[in-house]
């Protein structure tokens, strides 16, 4: 890792920050806690290390492709290598407060911090209805008050 290059880690970070989760348009994969590490060597070759929410997540290919594309667009970058790491394991604590807010507001999606999951709409208690939803990182809850059907991101 070096900071002598004209292309900085910060430039690459800024570029990666524009890559959104393919299933949550507008929510950056950086805010979802997928970015683990960026390295750049003297030959301007970039290594981006990511961690998946779940190892078999179908979006991995698309996310890696999107990152490769934006990083290659950063002036000075000669080569990009995107790697998915096995460790550390992704947990919901890696999601930023901003992403949690955006998920609640724009997608009515809650994040499971502890046993108690609040309804993103009315803040009431919810009941878990099934452990899996449209993807393995989500369970389905129902709000006790407003009866909203909620997807809950969980580890």
């Amino acid at each position, binding site marked *: 890792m070096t900071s002598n290059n004209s292309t900085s880690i910060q430039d690459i970070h800024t570029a990666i920050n524009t890559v959104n989760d393919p299933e949550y348009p507008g929510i950056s994969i950086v805010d979802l806690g997928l970015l683990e590490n960026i390295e750049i060597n003297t030959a301007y070759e970039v290594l981006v290390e990511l961690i998946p929410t779940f190892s078999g997540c179908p979006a991995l290919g698309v996310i890696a492709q999107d990152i490769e594309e934006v990083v290659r667009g950063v002036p000075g970058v000669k080569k990009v290598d995107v790697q998915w790491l096995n460790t550390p394991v992704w947990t919901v604590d890696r999601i930023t407060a901003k992403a949690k807010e955006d998920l609640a507001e724009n997608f009515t999606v809650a994040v499971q911090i502890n046993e108690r999951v609040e309804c993103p709409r009315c803040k009431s208690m919810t009941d878990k209805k099934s452990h*899996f939803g449209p993807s393995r990182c989500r369970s389905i809850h129902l709000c006790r008050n407003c009866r909203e059907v909620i997807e809950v991101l969980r580890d």
Partner: protein
Amino acid sequence: MNRSWDSLETFENFLDSGGIVEPVDEMPTEYRQAVFDFIEMHANSELMGGLTERDWIPRAPGLRHKMSVIAKTQDEIGHAHLLYMVAADLQIKTRQEMMRDLFAGKSKFHNVFHYRAKTWGDQVAIAFLVDAAALVSQQAVFKNCSYGPYKRILKRIIAEEGFHLRFGEESVLRIAEGTQIQRSMFQSSINDWWWPALQLFGPDSKPNDLLLRWHIKSERNEVLRDRWIQKFVPLLQGYGFTIPDPDLRWNKEENRWEIGPIDWEPLKRTLAMGGPDSARRISEASESWEKSSWVREALEKVAT
């Protein structure tokens, strides 16, 4: 806050001014029924679509495609799950009753799932043409849907279907750049699926369509159908494939594609469960539901 309306007229004024109905509101019976029917059909279609997708997990050409097909299956079944919950909450039918009616051939689902996908080319045609047709109609519903829970779920479904479309586009590109055998396989799939995909939008909307009046749908069937035609004719032709419509022509004055007359008989047959693959599809769905009953029973035991 439980809102209620003293007449259908005040309710319609509320809808016309952009009002959003929530499950706790005391909505008119007719509206409740219309929303329920619409969501039930959508849920059924997601379930039948997911089961079609599932058939291709063992047959997908290569690991990457297999992963995509598995993921799409989970998405579709997950969408069905969310939609059945929203539908059941309207308290017209329970989830069990919706399943019972579907397996008895009494409930509607999209016409395209009354046909059989015989080759990988068919599967790609579904991912490309049919998924796009479904997406075009869902986007239009989402834009101006008056039933809150459905509108919010549609937003997430649309994001995921958009992701599926990327898979469809990638798969078509692969076939288009492939061997002569691959290209002719896909041409024959286009020949089989072009018209069913186009019929998915349904016949032209009637002037008194209640779904439009109550803002459950926001655009007329023919408008959506035309949007899809204008997009897919040039796309398929660009890849060097032929559209199976001898009357297709470019209207220079209006700058748009015009298609030949649509035969609505095949659509009517699918609605009466008399499509080429209706019986097998329904019995397979029912069988899969039976076979998985132990999972539901086990989960219920864990929950209690």
